[in-house]
């Protein structure tokens, strides 16, 4: 086998992002705090450039590289573009917040770029090792990001918790992978799938490994009962990091689940669908019910994330292309929504004040009708009320489970989404029905305002015209 430069084309976006991240790292060394704008601009350009490259190398066919360890297929393209786009929004929200909190350092951008690179690698993983490499690159960057405000005890505690639990989860995952490897004799997903499909492999070993793999995936997603880190980490991390953490890694977690469970262990779908069913019911129940008791908005959104993970898994349970595309749609929409929700918190914060409580939303409609209106759309999208896109996300997932005759599961899901509607409504109530307790002008920067407007408008636009995004998600699994 010989390498020439053109054969590297499918991996070009990753190479570009790696180069750009290193460039930002070096350039940032020579910048004073006042010229740090350059790192921000360079990072945004790097992300936009990567999006352009992903779009350029995209295509309907499946390409493999490096002996099957790297895969470029339509799903990977969609995932990468979603990751990077949400990443752009996250950076735009984050800059103003970091500036206000006095922790405006270049490492935020660099770590975010490396995390995104890790996620892209996960999206394109063709074997267990690539997947694991991407996951660890993501995880290590994010551990550091959580502790980004080094003087914050809360942040350090959150990072520590995240690190210990994350390491445990990685260990579980690796252990499960080793079982699958031992049983099938291969690390490449396609060969693993073939071995499972042949029926000559001892199923006990496979299922034993599968349990650990599912636990690892559930940890990374934050599904109940492996969710304990989520509220603490979301709460402890600086808001700029939380919004990054709550949005893009969910897309990466989707990639993780897709590559491991569908590409690799697709033949065992009957087994993992049962395991996921337990996770779904628990996540929906605990996530939605516990969220009601939260007064801290970051924690509330953390529990809301847990419940949304339940919906994403619901798509997987259908175990067919329709279900996967519904889960993909849900994940992308959720990442966009979550970025917006935390983005507002970042915008409401200012020097000496960190907005994180539910009552910080009070009277937002009086302070800024525009921000309140956009947040309204985001919250109703989370609650899944039409005409916002969150409704269609839920609809597709429900359709997928009903199509495999699991109507009871759909019933459970809609029941808990009513419970969930309550705490979103309470946030709307704070914004619209209560008088402000804080009349200070909102000092959100222009870039975060633009990002937030795009984010809110997207909720409505994709809600009124969901066909385009849906078509993309369907096409990703058509091949």
């Amino acid at each position, binding site marked *: 086998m010989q390498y020439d430069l053109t054969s590297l084309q499918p991996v070009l976006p990753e190479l570009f992002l790696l180069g750009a991240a290193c460039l930002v790292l070096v350039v940032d060394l020579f910048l004073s705090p006042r010229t740090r704008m350059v790192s921000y601009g360079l990072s945004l350009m790097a992300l936009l450039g990567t999006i352009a490259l992903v779009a350029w190398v995209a295509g309907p066919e499946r390409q493999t590289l490096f002996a099957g360890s790297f895969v470029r297929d339509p799903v990977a393209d969609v995932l990468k573009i979603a990751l990077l786009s949400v990443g752009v929004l996250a950076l735009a929200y984050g800059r103003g917040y970091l500036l206000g909190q006095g922790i405006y350092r270049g490492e935020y951008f660099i770590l975010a770029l490396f995390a995104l690179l890790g996620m892209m690698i996960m999206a394109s993983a063709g074997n267990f090792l690539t997947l694991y490499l991407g996951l660890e690159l993501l995880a290590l960057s994010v551990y550091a990001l959580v502790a980004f405000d080094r003087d914050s005890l809360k942040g350090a505690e959150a990072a520590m918790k995240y690190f210990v639990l994350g390491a445990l989860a990685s260990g579980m995952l690796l252990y499960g992978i080793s079982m699958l490897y031992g049983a099938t004799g291969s690390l490449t997903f396609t060969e693993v799938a073939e071995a499972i499909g042949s029926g000559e492999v001892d199923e006990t070993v496979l299922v034993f490994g599968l349990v650990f793999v599912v636990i690892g995936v559930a940890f990374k997603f934050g599904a109940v009962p492996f969710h304990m880190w989520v509220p603490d980490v979301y709460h402890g991390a600086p808001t700029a990091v939380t919004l990054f953490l709550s949005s893009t890694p969910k897309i990466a977690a989707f990639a993780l689940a897709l590559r491991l469970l569908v590409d690799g262990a697709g033949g065992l779908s009957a087994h993992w669908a049962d395991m996921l069913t337990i996770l779904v019911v628990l996540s929906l129940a605990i996530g939605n019910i516990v969220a009601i008791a939260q007064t801290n908005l970051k924690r509330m959104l953390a529990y809301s994330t847990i419940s949304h993970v339940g919906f994403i898994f619901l798509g997987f349970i259908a175990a067919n292309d329709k279900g996967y595309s519904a889960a993909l749609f849900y994940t992308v929409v959720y990442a966009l929504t979550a970025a917006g929700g935390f983005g507002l918190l970042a915008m409401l914060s200012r020097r000496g004040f960190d907005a994180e409580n539910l009552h910080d939303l009070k009277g937002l409609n009086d302070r800024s009708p525009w921000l309140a209106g956009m947040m309204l759309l985001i919250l109703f999208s989370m609650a899944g009320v039409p005409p916002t896109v969150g*409704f269609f996300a839920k*609809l597709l997932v429900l359709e997928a489970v009903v199509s495999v005759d699991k*109507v009871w599961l759909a*019933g459970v899901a809609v029941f808990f989404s009513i419970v969930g509607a309550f705490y979103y*409504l309470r946030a709307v109530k704070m914004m619209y029905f209560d008088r402000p307790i804080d009349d200070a002008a909102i000092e959100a920067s222009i870039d975060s305002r633009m990002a937030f407007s795009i984010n809110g408008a997207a909720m409505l636009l994709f809600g009124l015209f969901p066909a385009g995004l849906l078509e993309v998600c369907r096409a990703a699994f058509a091949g």
Partner: protein
Amino acid sequence: MSADWPILSVVIWLPIIGGLLVLGSGDRVPNVTRWLALLVSILTFVLSIPLYTGFDVSTAQMQFVENLPWIPAFDVSYHLGVDGISMPLILLTTFITILVIIAGWEVIQYKPSQYMAAFLIMEGVMVGVFAALDAMLFYVFWEAMLIPMFIIIGIWGGPRRVYATIKFFLYTFLGSVFMLVALIYMYFESGSMEILAFHDLKLNLTEQVLIFVAFLLAFAVKVPMWPVHTWLPDAHVEAPTGGSVILAAIMLKIGGYGFLRFSLPITPDASQTLDWLIIGMSLIAVVYIGFVALVQQDMKKLIAYSSIAHMGFVTLGFFIVFRILANPDVDSGAVLGVQGGMVQMVSHGFISAAMFLCVGVLYDRLHSRQIADYGGVVNVMPWFAFFMVFFAMANAGLPGTSGFVGEFMVILASFRADFWFAVLAATTLILGAAYTLWMIKRVVFGEVRSEGVAALSDINAREVVVLASLALAVLALGLWPAPLIEVMDASIGNLVQHIGVSKL
């Protein structure tokens, strides 16, 4: 029949886009906002009139049909059309919205742009509910309705508005999500999201019963029927006048409309099997809620309970059909019941709107809705008293007003089904008169009871316009209901014929 321009789309989207413009106009010059909102609502009403003038009464087919692909991957289309059942309700919506805009003219001083915009957006969405022929499109409009109403009650409502609006939202949300599951299920059974395709879908009795119950949860909450009515008094009492008017005049009708468009034609056998349930709930609403209304101290609450009782008539009229069809001696009564229910819906739209506006007039002046705080209003507000007494008479079902027509038709139909149904239903004539007129006696007549009442000023020109136009409508419909009945005759005849045929 169809026009050469997309009339339904215009009537849906004009108020929504107009509402966004109103929202954008801001609150710096409130009068610009108000006039813009009024202009949009009047224009919408004028543009909706061709639906009536161009309507072909001889057919039960959908008219003014528009059909565009919306979400092809999911077989969902942007499919609009009206028949004799939905068309009158659309006109009711566009008409009432104008009055609501006018009624909120001076009263709403806090963020009038958001207030007006919410009502305009609401108007477009409600028309969408009536016009949608695609189940998913229907559901999107159906749920989207909740958002503006939630905001309206929550921002401009009374002291317990937050409790009331969250209860309203969760109650109706709870009802409708199970309908969503039923719709998805039928999508897999029929391979289509068309409501009309659902009508012809063969379903066995178990499926029908489950689907019927899912629909019942959605529509019974909306109507609302006893025992899921408890959100309504709260929502009505706390809502601003305009919100109460829209709730009573139109949103409740959407529940009744749902029964006609979904429950009856899609699950006729389940409807027949469970008709005792609906008839029972309706009669309880008529009798029991009538008594509850009698003891209310709060005028708005009283009218809210009276609404529940009147809507009981609507559902009674719809479901009495099965008892009549089962009775081989009579043939024409079935259509009469459904028609009576429909007339009652339109008529109640006018009367309840008028009653809430009357209470609103008093509330704007004295900031109290307690019956005990009033008394002798006629002495200081003779013009207002004239209108209020007139609407109270209509509410009690006085012949010559629209309130009489629907009730009479439903009672007549009940006679053909079962004598005792008719007797129970007819108690409304006594109870309705009792609670409405007793309230009138205590509020309007008698001596002036307090200084506050003595200082009241009579209604101004703006209020006269609103109340007079409603009075005209009530009178016209009461004296000559033929045009309304003629419009829906073919559609209802077709519906009754359809539900008479078992799907099993």
